[in-house]
């Protein structure tokens, strides 16, 4: 555990190595990446196992001295970190493996792996950071990794736009985080988590300040985790290669926001307002994104909105003091969403389109991918016995137990939506008529299916580490030794589980009726409420609103400033030079070549001086 800092270094080495020699290695680059992440994975598991027994380990060294302030860098292995290490390195390893098949034949194959390495390094670094500053550093680095990978197909204008958008939108959140972090620093004198918590506990910070900083930091999380209103980049981020979506925009990076809030849970918990904000934003995002997901036709976008929605769930959990529930869902979500994306990737790989309207009847052709996809779908829909069921249930209980009844019902509806759109997706892709143009559809190679298989297993079993029936092992472990995180298991009314099961089954049923059985017309909603349908279909016009307001305002300010630049700044300069020139012109004009003028001016000058002297300095 003392050497846990090595974990992020493996991918870093892979990144640097591939930068230097990638060109020569060609597709062999994959092995470098896979090997590096495998090393990380193995080590992470060792660390996790060790952490199960022993207490938190933390090591730091001075990074930067500012006068007598010393900022440190180091690493910490606590329960959350150890868990995250495993999740991240596992998913990363699987995605590395998967990509070898998926990216086969791409001319920038080594670059892809290099980027993946960079991202994995940053993400692993992020999860073992012992302080906010370091968190922020890696926070930004994962952003870059994400940016690079979204824009991997740089020649596509849409990829370019998406990458830019992702970077800037998250950057907005990051500034919030930065401000919050710095304010917190001046309040507590430290970036260290434990010192901050200590200060909070002692009441060294005023309540308002806690609320303010917590909300500012939450803005960072909103940006990163694609929460409303900074969610728009995440669906666009699907421009990146699908394995990237699985790794970054489903399992790990987008969960970083949740991770951040979880890491700072004691701070948030100290402010009712902050908690409520987190919960409301979470719940709203959950239902909001789910509703958009209902009508999307791009396989990856559906999954993306689903991700946004699920992240909202996690936020809701944290905001409802359900620390364990949030983290638990983070974990299960990582597995089943990664699985779904990889499976989707496998589908895209097979049919070369992302439009689900153009798919159908793939169940028979993709004999392997199909069932795996179904497992993922079941898990996310909260069908009992799958992992999603347990974690979602925890969240609902937490929300109810915290007294956020309104939010609880929102979450329930969102669960219904989730089940519906996921199965809508499943049915449209795998059932129904096989399209005629779908020739040459074949199953992906095993290098792609095996990772999916691993994830599928996890998607099924991961839930059992924390269940009401077999003991809340995970929860107890997570909160062990830290009361500020709340209880390992929150007991809730038994009916909640039934409601949850009911809505998910209802959703599946509805989807089956509309998209498989066709007993309800697919246009049922769009024909009855075209306006509402249009609004949802267009993602509530959020992008357009942003374009019209923020982007427009920025441009307007810029143009206004250019006006100032041209007319005020430059104008003043021009005025000055013009004045000097005019003076010169006048002077030259007076110099008219008439010698008597010269004499006159000289003499009158003398006379003026003398008269002034006589009037002022003279005697009498």
């Amino acid at each position: 555990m003392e050497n846990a800092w090595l974990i992020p270094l493996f991918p870093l080495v892979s990144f640097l190595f591939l930068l230097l020699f990638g060109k020569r290695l060609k597709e062999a680059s994959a092995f470098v990446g896979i090997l590096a992440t495998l090393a990380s994975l193995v080590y992470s598991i060792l660390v996790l196992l060790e952490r199960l027994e022993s207490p938190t380990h933390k090591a730091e060294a001075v990074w930067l001295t500012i006068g007598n302030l010393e900022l440190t860098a180091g690493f910490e292995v606590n329960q959350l970190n150890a868990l995250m290490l495993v999740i991240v390195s596992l998913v990363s390893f699987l995605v590395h493996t998967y990509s070898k098949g998926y990216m086969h034949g791409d001319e920038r194959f080594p670059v892809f792996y290099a980027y993946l390495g960079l991202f994995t390094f940053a993400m692993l670094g992020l999860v073992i950071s012992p302080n906010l500053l370091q968190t922020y550093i890696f926070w930004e680095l994962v952003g870059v990794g994400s940016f690079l990978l979204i824009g991997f197909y740089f020649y596509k204008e849409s990829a370019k736009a998406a990458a830019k958008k992702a970077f800037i939108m998250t950057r907005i959140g990051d500034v919030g985080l930065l401000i919050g972090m710095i304010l917190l620093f001046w309040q507590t004198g430290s970036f260290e988590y434990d010192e901050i918590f200590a200060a909070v506990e002692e009441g060294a910070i005023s309540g308002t300040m806690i609320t303010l900083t917590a909300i500012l930091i939450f803005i960072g999380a909103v940006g990163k985790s694609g929460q409303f209103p900074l969610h728009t980049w995440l669906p666009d981020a699907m421009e990146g290669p699908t394995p990237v979506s699985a790794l970054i925009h489903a399992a790990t990076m987008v969960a970083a926001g949740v991770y951040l809030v979880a890491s700072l849970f004691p701070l948030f918990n100290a402010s009712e307002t902050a908690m409520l904000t987190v919960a409301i934003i979470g719940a709203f995002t959950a239902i909001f994104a789910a509703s958009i997901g209902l009508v999307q036709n791009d396989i990856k976008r559906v999954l993306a909105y689903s991700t946004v929605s699920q992240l909202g769930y996690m936020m809701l959990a944290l905001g409802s003091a359900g620390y364990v529930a949030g983290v638990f869902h983070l974990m299960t979500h990582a597995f089943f969403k990664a699985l779904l994306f990889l499976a989707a990737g496998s589908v895209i790989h097979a049919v070369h389109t992302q439009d689900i309207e153009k798919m159908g009847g793939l169940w028979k052709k993709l004999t392997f991918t199909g069932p795996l996809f179904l497992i993922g779908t079941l898990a996310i829909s909260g069908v009992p016995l799958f992992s999603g069921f347990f974690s979602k249930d925890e969240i609902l209980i937490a929300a109810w137990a915290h007294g956020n009844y309104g939010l609880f019902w929102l979450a329930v509806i969102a669960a219904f939506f989730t089940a519906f759109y996921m199965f809508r997706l499943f049915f449209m892709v795998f059932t129904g008529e096989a399209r005629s143009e779908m020739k040459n559809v074949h199953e992906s190679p095993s290098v792609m299916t095996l990772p999916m298989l691993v994830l599928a297993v996890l998607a099924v079993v991961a839930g059992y580490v924390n269940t009401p029936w077999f003991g809340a092992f995970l929860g107890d472990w997570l909160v062990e030794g830290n009361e500020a995180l709340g209880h390992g298991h929150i007991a809730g009314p038994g009916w909640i589980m039934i409601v949850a099961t009911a809505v998910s089954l209802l959703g599946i049923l509805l989807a089956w009726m509309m998209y498989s059985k066709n007993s309800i017309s697919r246009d049922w909603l769009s024909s009855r409420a075209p306006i509402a349908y249009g609004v949802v279909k267009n993602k509530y016009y959020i992008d357009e609103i942003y374009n019209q307001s923020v982007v427009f305002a920025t441009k307007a300010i810029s143009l206004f400033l250019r006006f100032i630049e041209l007319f005020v700044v430059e104008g003043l300069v021009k005025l000055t030079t013009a004045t000097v020139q005019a003076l010169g012109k006048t002077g030259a004009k007076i110099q008219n070549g008439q010698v008597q003028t010269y004499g006159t001016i000289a003499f009158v000058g003398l006379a003026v001086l003398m008269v002034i002297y006589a009037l002022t300095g003279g005697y009498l």
Partner: protein
Amino acid sequence: MDLETLLSFDWGTMTPEFIILGFIAILSVADLFMPKHVDRKILGWVGFAGVVLALASLVSLIGTDTTSILYDTFRLDSFAIAFKLILLLGAALVMLLAIDYKHNDGLEDNKGEFFYLFLSAVLGTMFMASSGDLITLFVGLELLSIPSYILAGMRKRNMKSNESAMKYVLNGGISSAITLFGMSYVFGIAGTTNLKGIATVFGGLTDPQHIYILGLAFFMIFVGLSFKLASAPFHMWAPDVYEGAPTPVTAFLGAVSKTAGFVIILRILLSIFGYVPVAQEDGQPIPLLFAMQDYIAFLAGATMIIGNVIALRQRNIKRLFAYSSIAHAGYILVALTAMSFITFDAIWFYLLAYVLMNLGAFAIIQVITMKNGSEDISHFAGLYRRSPLLAVGMGIFILSLAGIPGTAGFIGKLNIFMGALMVDQAHYVLVSIMIATTVVSYFYYFGIMTQMFFRPASSEEKIQLPMGTLVVILVTAVGTILFGIMPNLAIDFLHTNFNQFMDFMR
């Protein structure tokens, strides 16, 4: 006065003047008897030798005690030596330029006359530096002026030259009259023309009416003499005259004659008006000169502004340098305004630097204008390609004129600033004007740079440098840089040998 008394004076101290006088005689006689077709260039070299000889003898006089001959009508004090050094140095350089000056419009027939008229003007400047009597000063001034009028008009067939001489003589006459009018009042109130005597009388003045009249006299003398400085308000002749006069004469007017103007103004102002007590409100009288500071400052400011601003519009290189020389007169007036304990240092050093850089620049201007027969600034285009030496040389002079560090011009300005800022009532406004106008001057100075270095040449023809001009350029360039990097050579020389001009009034 018998022979004994006559011989009792230390005539040796007048050696430099006698040498110049002797050479005037030699040249005039030689010119008279030389056959007409013989090139008079040789006379130029003789004249140059004379100036150098005079310079040498002047150098040997450094360190002699203050001597006064005939009631101060001639006096050799450290002030005189220090400034005569500059004057003779300038004169020697101008002489070299004049030797190489060739222009086919009337001057060539009278080259012999040109040289000894020039020497007489130099003689005049020397007496202006070296006298303690109003009459000698006035006569010295006229001895400078009258040959200058003639020299300006010596390109007889060139209308511009005629016009220039005409303008010069008319303005000069008026300025002389005004100066003299002022001097007559000074004489009237003092009853003597001896500067020390005047100072003694003035020191005891109490009658406010007399002081008032002296104030008027101050203005008349100052404005009258500002003609020689080409400073406001008597500056307007300068561009016309500089443009029309033969280039060596322009160089002479711009450098040597201006120096002489400062010399006489310092001499008269300090020894006369520095002693007139002006009662202040607090009862503590201050010298009239200090009471007049605001006026001088105003004129200095006006001079700097006028010179630099109008120079922006010039296309004729000589005219441009005329305006630039007006501006430089303004800079030096700033030092005069300040009247700090380093005013002498500042003015001396600045004049030294100014003579070097200005004459260097004129040497190059002469080469270029002679080559092209026109004085338009565009003939400098591509000079860097045609003659890198000339271009770099001109670059150095221009940088120095613009007051860029590393050149003598900068140290000169530094001295002036110091003086103006170290006094209790520091002249912030004046210094600001000076610096602002300096920046304005970058426009036209660097305009020449632009021509020389950036613009393509109209012809690729190389430029041949005559010997004398080459010497001038080298000497001035080396001096400009040397005194810019190691100004202590000059400043220490000044202080070790001249002891702060303590003997100014002794």
